[in-house]
């Protein structure tokens, strides 16, 4: 029988497993293989494209297919599949793979394939003469030739256990983790692993100990066989029968783990689904004894495996059955960048810095406060704005103030520019985002911009030490209107209640309110000239906001200047008004309003006239 795996073995990896594929390619490199072992990736849920992997230091493209038939058509030389499908789809995917005659070996990684399905896979595979490794396994490895998926781990382990070149010891085990341990033990006591297979921990593995041991028996390069069995199942007895029948003649070192099971009072299900003794025959102790009686080299305890192995190895070395060869030189495999970063071996400056929130941990956090605490402490919308905009949790009255501003600025009817824009865009049949953005785009110096402007003008006047009258006179001299002063309709006798709400809140809650007081006095001056030159809501909010930042003691003067200059008030207005714009969008949608066209008679056409 030709070898199952060799230096030119080509395989498909079924499922999205970049890390495993890269691991296989790195192994190929270490072994000095000329071509990568992974010919293609089959992934039914992704679009067909190519995956970028490293072949040594250069990148290579491995094609990706959605259907097995397409992959098979493109790569008739592939005869191995490493199947990473989940336990729910492992059966159907494997049965499909078995329809294609070119495959000789399929490794099924998933744990949890129902027992009946595993038997059906086993039966069909036998009919088609395909070797199934698994399910519920990490796979196996043939040094110098091929590595199944994640077997053998990282390259440092491959190098330490000399798995990049063949030795003379072939093993078969149920456990993936323990087979990696065997790699280590064998490397330390002999000339190394020739081939190793982990058949998996389920009750009905596709191939069992005897299947692989017979392969090793038939392969002249395998000189010693190691069998790591387990409590549960009767597969070890089939090996004993084969020895008695003379089918197996090579020396076998074996041990069944799980000798402790008999010492428990009630039955304990160990980690592997198959490791439960259904009868006395299936206990580890019975099997160890039976194997020893049949002439298998069984140590007294698991810990003594290295001694027993070393002994038989030395014997075969002396007799000339095993000939040690010179160690080949190992190519240097560059460390994967992400892995090196994880190990702290390299560093590189990041392209971005972000300081307000962190989504990487087990819990989302805003400025360091975990999201659960955000709710536990009931900090509200104001609190969230405080954390994400200012990176600190301001006192309660500030949070309430922020929320109040958002509520006050939420909407100002359909007639204002922004709302009108939104309405017209919605009526043009556009989506929410487009309609919202259309409204937001009107926010600027004339609409919504009064907040920023009045903050700038008032604080400028205040910091220069101008009296309210001086401020008003200076602005008049410069022919500038005072942003934050003036209203179309409202006046002293018919006040804007929004402003009253702000003034009330400041009076009641702020420890100091120099700016608002200044602004109110400015209003005294301006309203003496004209009744409607009241402090409007923009002026009130921006002055109160400045007061908030000063009074809470959480900001330096420098910071306050910077925040205002960077547009935090603009941000507040935008945040609040978004509520209204979305409202208008939904409203128009609800009304199923049609496309808007402005009436001609409301436009003065001066086309072609000299202006």
């Amino acid at each position, binding site marked *: 029988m030709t070898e199952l795996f060799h230096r030119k073995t080509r395989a498909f990896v079924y499922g999205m497993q970049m*890390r*495993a594929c890269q*691991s296989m390619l790195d192994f190929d490199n270490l072994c000095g293989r000329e071509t990568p072992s992974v010919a293609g990736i089959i992934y039914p849920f992704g679009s067909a494209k190519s995956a970028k992997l490293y072949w040594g230091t250069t990148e290579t493209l491995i094609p990706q297919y959605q259907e097995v038939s397409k992959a098979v058509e493109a790569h008739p030389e592939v005869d191995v599949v490493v199947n990473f499908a*989940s*336990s729910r789809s492992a059966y159907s995917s494997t049965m499909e793979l078995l329809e294609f005659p070119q495959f000789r070996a399929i490794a099924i990684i998933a*744990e949890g*394939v*129902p*027992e*009946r*399905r595993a*038997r*059906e896979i*086993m*039966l069909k595979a036998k009919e088609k003469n395909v070797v199934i490794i698994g399910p519920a396994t*990490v796979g196996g490895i043939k040094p110098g030739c091929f590595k199944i998926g*994640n*077997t*053998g*781990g*990282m390259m440092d*382990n491959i190098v*330490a256990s000399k798995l990049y070149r063949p030795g003379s010891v072939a093993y078969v*085990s*149920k*456990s*993936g*983790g*323990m087979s*990696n*341990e065997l790699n*280590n033990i064998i490397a330390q006591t002999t000339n190394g692993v020739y081939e190793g297979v982990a058949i998996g*921990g389920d*009750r009905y593995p596709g191939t069992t100990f005897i299947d692989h041991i017979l392969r090793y028996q038939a392969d002249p390069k395998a000189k010693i066989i190691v069998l*790591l069995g*387990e*409590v549960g199942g009767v597969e070890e007895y089939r090996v004993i029968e084969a020895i008695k029948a003379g089918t197996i003649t090579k020396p076998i070192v074996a041990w069944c*783990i*799980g*000798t*402790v099971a008999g*010492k*428990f*009072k*009630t039955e*304990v*299900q*160990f*980690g*592997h*689904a*198959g490791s*439960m003794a259904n009868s006395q025959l299936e206990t580890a102790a019975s099997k160890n004894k039976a194997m020893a009686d049949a002439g298998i080299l069984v140590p007294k*305890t*698991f*810990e003594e495996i290295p001694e027993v192995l070393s002994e038989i190895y030395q014997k075969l070395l002396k007799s000339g059955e095993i000939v040690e060869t010179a160690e080949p030189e190992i190519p240097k495999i560059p460390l994967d960048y992400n892995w090196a970063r*994880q*190990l*702290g071996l390299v560093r590189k400056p990041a392209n971005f810095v972000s300081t307000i929130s962190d989504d990487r941990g*087990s819990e989302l956090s805003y400025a360091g406060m975990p999201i659960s605490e955000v709710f536990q402490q009931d900090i509200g919308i104001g609190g969230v704005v405080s954390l994400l905009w200012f990176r600190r949790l301001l006192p309660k009255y500030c949070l309430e103030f922020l929320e109040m501003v958002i509520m006050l600025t939420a909407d100002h009817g359909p007639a204002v520019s922004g709302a009108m824009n939104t309405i017209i865009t919605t009526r043009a049949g556009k989506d929410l985002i487009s309609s919202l953005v259309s409204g937001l785009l009107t926010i600027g110096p004339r609409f919504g911009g009064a907040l920023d402007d009045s903050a700038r003008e008032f604080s400028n006047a205040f910091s220069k030490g101008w009296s309210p009258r001086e401020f008003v006179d200076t602005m008049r001299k410069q022919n500038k209107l005072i942003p934050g002063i003036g209203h179309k309709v409202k006046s002293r006798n018919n006040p804007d209640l929004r402003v009253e709400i702000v003034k009330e809140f400041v009076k009641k809650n702020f420890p100091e309110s120099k700016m608002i007081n200044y602004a109110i006095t400015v209003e005294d001056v301006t309203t003496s000239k004209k009744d409607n030159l009241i402090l409007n809501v923009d002026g009130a909010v921006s002055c109160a906001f400045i007061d908030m930042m000063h009074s809470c003691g959480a900001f330096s003067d420098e910071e306050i200047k910077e925040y205002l200059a960077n547009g935090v008030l603009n941000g507040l207005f935008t945040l609040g008004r978004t509520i209204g714009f979305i409202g208008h969008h939904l409203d128009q949608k609800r009304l199923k309003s049609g496309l808007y066209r402005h009436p001609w008679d409301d436009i003065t056409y001066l086309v072609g006239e000299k202006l």
Partner: protein
Amino acid sequence: MSAKSIREFDGKALLAYFLPRSPIFGAPCTAEYPQLAPKLAQLRFSPDASESEIKEVFDKAQACYPWLTESGARFVCKPDMLIKRRGKSGLLGLNKTWEEVKQWVGERAGKTQQVEHVEGKLTVFLVEPFVKHDQKSEYYININSSREGDNILFYHEGGVDVGDVDAKASKLLVPIDLSKFPSDEDITSQLFQHVPEGQRSALLNFVKRLYAVYVDLQFTYMEINPLVVLETANGIEFHALDLAGKVDQTAEFECGPKWSIARSDEQLGKALKDESAVVTVDNGPPMEFPSPFGRDLTPEESYIADIDAKTGASLKLTVLNPKGSIWTLVAGGGASVVYADAIASAGYADDLANYGEYSGAPNEAQTYAYAKTVLNLMVRGDVYPNGKVLFIGGGIANFTSVGSTFKGIIRAFRDTKDEILKHKIRIYVRRGGPSWQEGLRLLTDAGNELKLPMEIYGPEMHVSGIVPLALSGKKFDIKPFGVTPSA
């Protein structure tokens, strides 16, 4: 997840629903199977249930199952908790009126019972109609799975004294390829030689239907003993007087809906629906997989089983002896068994407190939860004069990151450091695999910082070498991690 035992109640409910329905293999059956609501009453009590609770359970049962209070009706009552050989342990009430049943069950409900060397509380009972019959109408049937296929065992003399069935029973192997299901002639000649002629055809139909259910619902084991075959005026009736079954829990994604629908209130013919019931995944309650009698899952084991079910990684915990002084936190289904073996070899099997493993690359948070659970169990109760031992072990991992799993373990240490010191816990570590150096280094630093007594080894140490090192004083030539060998 693997093959797990189910209660007799659940097994019988599945049969009642699916015997008439599951698709048959081989030649079609010659007669229909009656679709009847089963008469099965499950009674559940709290451990140490009060008299008033017991009465409440009976009252509710009477309302749910009107057939319990039919005049002249007689019943069988027994605990339904995966206890074997109940008849021999005096745990079987036969031919009782409903009043007598209440008496019998009431005496045992919620109370401790010793069965062989295990003790537990009797909390779940099954009440069914008593089937009057002759000894000679008791048969034995068993279906079990093996690598070659499914084995059907049949013996014409069933009952509690059936003896060694393996030796006596007639056997039939059903191959895995069900298109090769044996012919009616083969089945009859293999199994029913000692059965009266008049019953063979009905028995054939029944066995084929039984096998159909076995396959359809992915049983891995089913034993009916005795199977009572009654020749009545209406034809031949089959009664499974006792049923032990195991189904493949990994098949839940395929069979879950089937397992559920057979046990819904409607199918069970309940007159009183459970209004408070939560919304279930399928049209009926999820299948129950009870722990072996006397081995209820502790809150900690349930917690870990929950996490295990939600991830592709594997996390398993079984508390063997909560008062034990030797605890393990081992990675891998194989290595964890090797450690248990080594601890038993050293003579400490009775002191071994837990069996468990984590593998398949659990993340830091999952490993933290796992380690924290084990540590919490370790620091419960009294301080032992000789302290306790914790083995943090494992092989050389293939792809589990030692670095991130150990970070989880370290975090658990930080949370419990005072108790660890108080309970004089000595910690021994051996591990290899991806980023093992980082993992061991972080652990060493944490140990120094938290002043925890730790001996740490990398892959140079034999996989379970730290066990004889800790328990038998064995000496090794290998230096602990981070210690440079002296010149």
